[in-house]
């Protein structure tokens, strides 16, 4: 007699718990402002676990972004979160990348740029972060200098071993846009020297546009480019730039 009663009581409890879980009102809107401790706090109190804490906050940050970008569009604490994660784990490149785009959504380009600059310093062998900085400055920056600064970031990225050749082209293009035509010409010549067939075609087209029209002036402007490549290659470039060179 007691056993069926006990079973009944347990069944009732289980039903009640499940019913509550299923029917309880949807979770209340979460507050976009969350408490983010300082990185120094964790550095002081658990240096051995700082990357694990960074990872935990990284996962939280991804969740926080997903939750708010789709609902209230408020990402008040995003910058603090990105800052915390990247300070605890300065070599966590994915966190800078994700953070940059999330902060653009949060309308905090300046914070993103500052954090990214830290990332570049902490990860000198990574070309992705300076390239991202270039993208950030060119795409979202303001002011007359932005092409020049973006070009510098791309050039910095392009100088890192293993970086793709398109970074050199981007750097050269933006340098030209920034008004430094002589420097741009040199950069394009470098692209010509280092690049594949496609890059060379691009370089020739770009140089064609950059260099003066008149044969004499063009000849003078082209001369310094000889420094950037072997003689035979330079001959080829000249042939491409001067219709009647041969």
């Amino acid at each position: 007699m007691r056993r069926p009663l006990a079973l009944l009581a347990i069944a009732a409890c289980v039903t009640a718990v499940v019913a509550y879980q299923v029917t309880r009102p949807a979770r209340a809107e979460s507050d976009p402002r969350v408490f983010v401790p300082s990185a120094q706090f964790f550095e002081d109190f658990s240096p051995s676990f700082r990357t694990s804490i960074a990872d935990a906050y990284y996962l939280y940050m991804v969740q926080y972004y997903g939750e708010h970008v789709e609902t209230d569009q408020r990402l008040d604490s995003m910058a603090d979160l990105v800052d915390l994660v990247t300070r605890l784990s300065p070599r966590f490149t994915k966190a800078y990348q994700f953070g940059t785009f999330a902060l653009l959504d949060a309308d905090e380009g300046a914070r993103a740029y500052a954090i990214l600059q830290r990332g570049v310093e902490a990860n000198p062998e990574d070309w992705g972060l300076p390239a991202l900085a270039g993208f950030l400055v060119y795409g979202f920056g303001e002011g007359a200098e932005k092409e020049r600064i973006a070009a510098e970031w791309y050039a910095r990225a392009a100088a890192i071993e293993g970086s793709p050749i398109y970074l050199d082209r981007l750097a050269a293009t933006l340098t030209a846009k920034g008004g430094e035509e002589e420097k741009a010409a040199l950069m394009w010549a470098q692209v010509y020297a280092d690049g594949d067939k496609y890059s060379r075609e691009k370089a020739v087209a770009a140089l064609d546009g950059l260099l003066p029209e008149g044969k004499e002036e063009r000849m003078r402007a082209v001369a310094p480019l000889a420094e950037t490549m072997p003689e035979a290659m330079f001959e080829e470039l000249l042939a491409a730039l001067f219709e009647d060179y041969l």
Partner: protein
Amino acid sequence: MNQVAAIALNTFRETIRDRVLTVIVLFALVMIVAGLWLGSISLEQQGRMMKDFGLVAVTVFGVIVAAFIAATLVRKEVEKRTVFVLFSKPVSRAAFVVGKFLGLAATLAAVVGGMGLFLFVLTLLVGGGASGMVLVATALIYLQVLTVVAVVVFFSTVTSAILASMLGLGVFVAGQLSHNVLSLSRVGAGAITEAVSWVVFVVIPNFNAVDVKAAAVGEMTVDWGSVALWAGYLVAYMAVALAAASFVMRRKEF
């Protein structure tokens, strides 16, 4: 030496057959595998999440096993009066303490090493840059866990098992903060504060100095010379704790 080996082997048998150990290890393995699930919401950072959280699991469970099993090592023999069998034979108190310690050390080598290897193989399977650093970090976690064992063995000779476990966990936590104590000794808050802080810094094992978990996710460049020195320091620390435990045991009557 023979006595130490006999007691160590017996302790290894005792602890490795402990059901609690099996449960904790299974739970730890589940936690490590749970890293996979966490990785799935990490935007292609599975490898990193797995290594990082996995090593935390190895540390936490290793320390828990160490603290709780070590506390009962000596006490159980005293309470169940098996010490009568040992000490009525030509077994010194020091051989007893060292044998018990080495036996649990062997068990923990299997437990912590097993978890580390499991984690390593898992990162190898999942991809995301399996790194031998996971194994190196595990070895150094093992060293920290052993230090906790030595400390708990000492405490268990002077206090109850549960208190010894708690004190052992406390020492582990304090060992994470020991550099803060050192900075306290430099703030110039008075000669006494400085002296006390310095003593506390010396007494508490410095675990941060041998922790290379961050290196497994490429977050630090390890100064191996310094790690080796600090590892030696921890070994000496254990020797001192065990010597103190032997000393207390020598004065005990049964």
